[in-house]
């Protein structure tokens, strides 16, 4: 037991040290939209809000005869109608791209596409910030820092999931929506209502999310536990809540990405190979402080010991005078508050949309499982490994594929250690 905990702690510390012993700007991706008949079309953009106007695109048939030419509008959109179905050659004039923007590595400026009669076809040019020739060491250092930050966000969001599973056996698929809820509530207080400073908004968000978590426990999950619903039924209830929560958030906040008004544009501070914004430093520092506080609390305080006792054996804990329901209520409140705060930090890093939490949920699960279900320290260590492997993998593979790495790592680890890296071996299957 002690060895495991020590090992988990060692990995946690190692990840932290690595980050400071060894840069990625916003990754770009282009997306396709289509809706009209027999046309070639696309939107030229990076991320969600950077569109490129005035870029020339020409379309030729296979013999090389020109069919049409288009220039992107202010929304980055272009389209060319083609006369008949067939294969066409679409080329992008690279000299018309803005400075500092180019095709991403490994992509061509000429794309051949086949169009069917009456159908529209999107043509994607993978544009992004042109490679600046940063040395590998510097890029590695920056990705490790990004990985640390991402891993810490996952770890903080994962605490609630892990503790709730430990104390009640509930696998909460709606945990991702708690994260999204935190992100949008903070946006609401920050940008829409009251225009609070984001730090104040984040504190309000934690209180709101904590109350929501406590409400879910007392209003829904405690009665369900008392009715002795099976594991499967409970999981399905949380899946239903997840769908419901995501759609309700989309109903009120829309599907378009939302930005916070504070801390958006910041000058990067240079520390050796790192170029870090104060915002990112604050994120890392706050989360490390919270994780340490949670660790100390679980290890030394009365409440922490009671939580661990309930995780170990709820009936025995109850019999020795621990108020199990109160412990579970606190765990829900704290877990939901931390998940909400995780959403705020993730929203600062990317943009806020209704899928923010669900995307994070799989990684949270991966972190929790990698560390071993129900072990708080394992969950922290597992999450850091997941976050780190996600970001560091972008050194070698395309950023679109970065989420494949942690998920594949999860499957591989479970192949050899079904109980997770730091879990206690129990007989399963």
């Amino acid at each position: 037991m002690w060895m495991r905990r020590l090992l988990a702690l060692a990995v946690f510390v190692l990840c932290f040290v690595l980050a400071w012993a060894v840069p990625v700007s916003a990754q770009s991706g282009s997306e396709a939209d289509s809706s009209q008949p027999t046309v070639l079309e696309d939107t030229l953009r990076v991320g969600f809000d950077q569109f490129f106007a005035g870029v020339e695109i020409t379309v030729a048939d296979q013999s090389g005869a020109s069919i049409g030419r288009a220039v992107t509008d202010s929304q980055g959109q272009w389209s060319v109608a083609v006369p008949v179905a067939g294969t066409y050659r679409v080329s992008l004039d690279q000299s018309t791209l803005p400075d500092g923007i180019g095709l991403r590595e490994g992509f061509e400026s000429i794309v051949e596409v086949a169009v069917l009669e009456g159908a529209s076809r999107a043509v994607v040019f993978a544009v992004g910030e042109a490679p600046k020739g940063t040395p590998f060491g510097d890029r590695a250092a920056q990705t490790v820092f990004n990985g640390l930050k991402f891993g810490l966000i996952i770890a903080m969001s994962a605490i609630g999931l892990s503790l709730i599973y430990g104390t009640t056996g509930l696998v909460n698929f709606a945990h991702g929506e708690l994260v999204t809820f935190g992100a949008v509530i903070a946006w609401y207080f920050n940008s829409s209502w009251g225009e609070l400073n984001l730090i104040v908004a984040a504190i309000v968000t934690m209180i709101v999310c904590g109350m929501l978590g406590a409400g879910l426990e007392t209003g829904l999950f405690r009665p369900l536990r008392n009715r002795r619903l099976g594991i499967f039924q409970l999981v399905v209830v949380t899946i239903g809540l997840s769908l419901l929560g995501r759609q309700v958030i989309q109903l009120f906040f829309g599907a378009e990405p939302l930005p916070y008004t504070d801390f958006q544009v910041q000058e990067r501070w240079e520390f050796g190979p790192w170029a870090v914004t104060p915002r990112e430093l604050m994120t890392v520092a706050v989360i490390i402080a919270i994780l340490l506080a949670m660790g100390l609390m679980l290890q030394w305080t009365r409440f922490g010991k009671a939580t661990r006792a309930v995780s170990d054996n709820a009936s025995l804990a109850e019999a020795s005078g621990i108020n199990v329901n109160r412990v579970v209520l606190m765990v829900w409140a704290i877990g939901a508050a931390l998940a909400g705060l995780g959403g705020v930090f993730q929203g600062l890093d990317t943009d806020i949309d209704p899928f923010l939490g669900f995307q994070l949920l799989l990684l949270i699960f991966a972190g929790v499982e990698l560390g071993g279900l129900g072990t708080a320290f394992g969950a922290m260590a597992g999450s850091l490994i997941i976050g780190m492997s996600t970001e560091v993998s972008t050194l070698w593979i395309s950023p679109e594929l970065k989420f494949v790495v942690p998920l594949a790592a999860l499957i591989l680890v479970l192949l050899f250690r079904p109980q997770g890296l730091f879990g206690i071996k129990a007989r399963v299957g």
Partner: protein
Amino acid sequence: MDFDIIFGNAARAAFGPEAVILALAAIGLNVHFGFTGLLNFGQVGFLLLGAYGTSVSVATFGWSLWVGILVGLVLSVALAVALGFPTLRLHAVMFAIVTIAAAEIIRILIGSTDAIGLTGGPLSVSFDAGAFYDLNPYPDGPHDRYGVGTFEFTGQQMWVITVGWVLVALVSLVVFLIVRSPWGRVLKSIREDEDAARSLGKNVFSYKMQALIIGGVIGGLGGVIDAIKTSGADPNGFRPQVTFFAYTALLLGGAATYMGPVLGAILFWFLREWIESFLRQLTAEAWLPDAVADFLSGSEGVISVAMVGLTLVLLMLFRPQGITGNRIEMQLDAR
């Protein structure tokens, strides 16, 4: 408010190709979860491989459609085997999460720009399903319609749904026969108590693997129908929530029953489309306050999916066995 249109839309959705696809996905899940107790949350991965196997074989390699369908089904088997080996020994909840993760890995890989040359990547893939429609016995002129009132299909749609529902009937029959056999009783005993089955000398791992393959191939068939219906495949059509919709259909109709998943799929699409059409008609009404109309318009789809979530919660609270299920059979603890 025109209830003819609302009911017509709902009925068309309930018997259209979407319901066929969902029914096949749910029947596959029923083999996994209902009869064997496997908590497969990655069913959409099987649909994806069925659809992409078919589309890519025809569009990229230029093979015949029938070969493509075979490729799609073989890929589903391959996924079941690849997934089963590392995961069938895991705890139920871990199995659920790993299956979601596997389906997401496949979706991300297939939808990435690196895969454009093979699968079309984010551009989606389209192919000519003419070989299928050449067999269409229904006259398909521009004015040929089949059905009554607002509940009508074109000749091409009729052909897809005829083949689809015949397939659903056949698959249901096969599932009925194999689950009723001694083999099926072993599956149910694994669901009820794995250790007891093992102590009787049954190779639990092998039975689970067989169930995973059979249910996966049925899901793959759903993907094949999807590919034929749309003459292609798009990575965004295979998000994890498709699996959750299949669970909703299964649990609505009744898990561990033979007609449950089919009934559930029909009902799922009927209700979802009914709500969406109803809201669309409602927002056009003059008596509705502008503020409410503005809030609702454009969000009809969002609300109908929210209702799916609510349905899942309420089902589990008040009728976990679904419409036709047996309450005692649904008392199982997934393992």
